[in-house]
């Protein structure tokens, strides 16, 4: 850095990453609106919801290096909170007779509802995090998993407040793509702002060199807790939007299946980068969609070419294994940045890319 007389702020040096990623998302949304059919619109909404979830997951997992199996628990909380806040009072009486009366009478529009749901999930992430963030490594991963199982058990059995395992219907469905796009872009910018903040830098230092970080006075449980709370809030927001995109919630929607698919998207994309989080979702979702399309059958001349059922998942698994074997740190081990004009600047251009071990791309 010393060789440059004018040092730009960290924010300016790294802003290109979230800008490029947002541009990718905006282009996807525009293409959808311009050409898309209704099922295609729904597919794209699913992708944006997953972008929010995986980006939220990245805030904690990517920066701390601790694999969390528990975040989908906060997604579950966000989704149910959105149901509590936005459903018509009459339907709440049916599904959730045990809710307090003021909450039953309340009916918010989906926007404020989703934000509140995110905050709700964030508060619980703070509470759980106070306990869990003292752990590290695989013990922390298992503890987050135990947390997920706890949340799932409670939501699947607390009849009067969550309607147990019954599907909760009556959540207002939002079919336009824009709120999801805004949510995804907001998640990307929150993740970026956290990554370049003092807490984000300290957390990545603790991930790469825990002993040195500790010796330089970084309070590791504290910086982890900040990331955990923030990422809990973002995945909670994702949960709320997910509830509005499908209109139905059950506890098992938010359990192991979703946990593994979101983690896979993060790891295949590149666990340590924001670009990896976003592009992992986009690419894997497009792959899944393409395989589903093949499974349904594609007319080739006179006949129809279709994959046998189940092959879609098998191919998906095989593709993931091949990608990981080829690129163990994911497809995008480096952030997207503007093409640098100066060769020298390239090396220093982004603080966010520096957490990637050199030469592994």
């Amino acid at each position, binding site marked *: 850095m010393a060789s440059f007389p004018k040092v730009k702020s960290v924010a300016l040096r790294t802003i290109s990453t979230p800008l490029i990623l947002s541009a990718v998302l905006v282009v996807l949304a525009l293409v959808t609106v311009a050409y898309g059919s209704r099922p295609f619109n729904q597919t794209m909404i699913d992708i944006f919801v997953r972008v929010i979830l995986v980006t939220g997951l990245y805030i904690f997992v990517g920066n701390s290096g601790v*694999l969390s199996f528990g975040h989908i628990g906060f997604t579950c909380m966000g989704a149910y909170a959105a149901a509590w806040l936005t459903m018509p009072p009459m339907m709440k009486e049916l599904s959730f007779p045990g809710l307090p009366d003021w909450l039953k009478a309340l009916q918010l529009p989906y926007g404020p509802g989703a934000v509140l749901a995110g905050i709700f999930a964030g508060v619980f992430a703070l509470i759980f995090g106070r*306990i*869990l963030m*003292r*752990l*590290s490594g*695989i*013990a922390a991963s*298992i*503890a987050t*998993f*135990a*947390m997920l*199982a*706890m949340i799932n*058990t*409670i939501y699947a*059995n607390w009849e009067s407040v969550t309607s147990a395992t019954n599907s909760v219907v009556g959540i207002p469905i939002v079919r336009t793509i824009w709120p999801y796009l805004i949510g995804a872009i907001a998640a990307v910018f929150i993740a970026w702002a956290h990554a370049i903040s003092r807490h984000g830098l300290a957390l990545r230092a603790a991930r790469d060199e825990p*002993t040195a970080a500790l010796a330089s006075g970084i309070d590791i449980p504290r910086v982890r807790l900040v990331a955990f709370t923030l990422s809990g809030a973002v995945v909670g927001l994702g949960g709320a939007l997910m509830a509005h995109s499908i209109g139905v919630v059950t506890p098992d929607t938010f359990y*192991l299946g979703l946990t*593994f698919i979101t*983690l*896979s998207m993060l*790891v*295949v994309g590149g*666990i340590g980068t924001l670009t990896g989080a976003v592009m992992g979702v986009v690419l894997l979702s497009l792959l899944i969609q393409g395989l589903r399309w093949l499974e349904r059958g594609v007319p080739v001349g006179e006949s129809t070419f279709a994959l*046998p*059922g*189940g*092959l879609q*998942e*098998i191919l*998906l*698994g*095989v593709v*993931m*294994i091949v990608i*990981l*074997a080829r690129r*163990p*740190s994911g497809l995008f081990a480096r952030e997207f940045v503007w093409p640098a004009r100066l060769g020298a600047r390239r090396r220093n251009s982004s603080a966010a890319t520096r957490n990637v071990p050199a030469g592994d791309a």
Partner: protein
Amino acid sequence: MLQVLFDALSLGSLYALGALGIALIFGVMRLVNFAHGDVIAFSVFALLWPSTDAVAIVFAGHLPWFLLIPFVLAVGAGLSVLSEIVVFRRFRHASPATMMIASFALGFVIRYFLLMLFSSRPKSISLLPALSQPVEILGARMPLLQLITILATIVMLIALSVFVRRTRFGLEMRAAAENFTMARMLGVRANRVIMGAFALSGALAGAISIILGAQTGTADIQMGGAVMLMAFIATVIGGLGSLEGAVLAGFLLGAASVVMQTVLPPEARPFRDAFVYGAVILVLLFRPQGLIAARGTKERV
């Protein structure tokens, strides 16, 4: 009272066998193998002829028990070794997170392969039906199967511990678990040890699948999942890489589930699992390295 004890022991046996299968592999290559549950399911389905009907067409299941059991164990071991050769060998230098996701993807492939051949409907099978007859011991009635499960687990655990402590291969495996690089330098053949660990772990998965199949009388492509998750937790509570710890924690988890089922007031019973998982978090808080910490898991500076 005695009934509770036997319930706890037989559930604990399942968890202990599962935990051991995961700990064996973790010990030699730091891989948390999420495909283990699907190996369990695959071993049961190896007894059936592929079909999508609800009633299973039994194929190898007609074998007499002394052939059937080795057959299932061999299928488990074979699939496990195959997964090492085809997939995990490519991940020797990858980070644990990458390996974990790869193993999950492999499990996905196995599960949907079974789904393609057998459909997702659970099938009823009668596996070793003689075992479900009840017997009476010290005034407690229980299925013979429960007794055999407990005895077989104990026999397997003793055999395995003799194998690990008294044979050259076991010695090599323990050396590799403790310090893989050093063991290689001293002439331990890495591939052989790793393949051995996978074979043992797969055979344990086969054993679980026989017990589960006989207990529930159904073959379901999801059947390994629940056991695997508990086993996975047991492995960590026991101290990752520590085989004794895995077994101990497996039994403890089984006991905790059964005891809570009887002790909790009826209105709290549906939340039993929440209490069990809460206990797991507590144990981890007090002993983050597990009950019996394996040496060499914490990096020295």
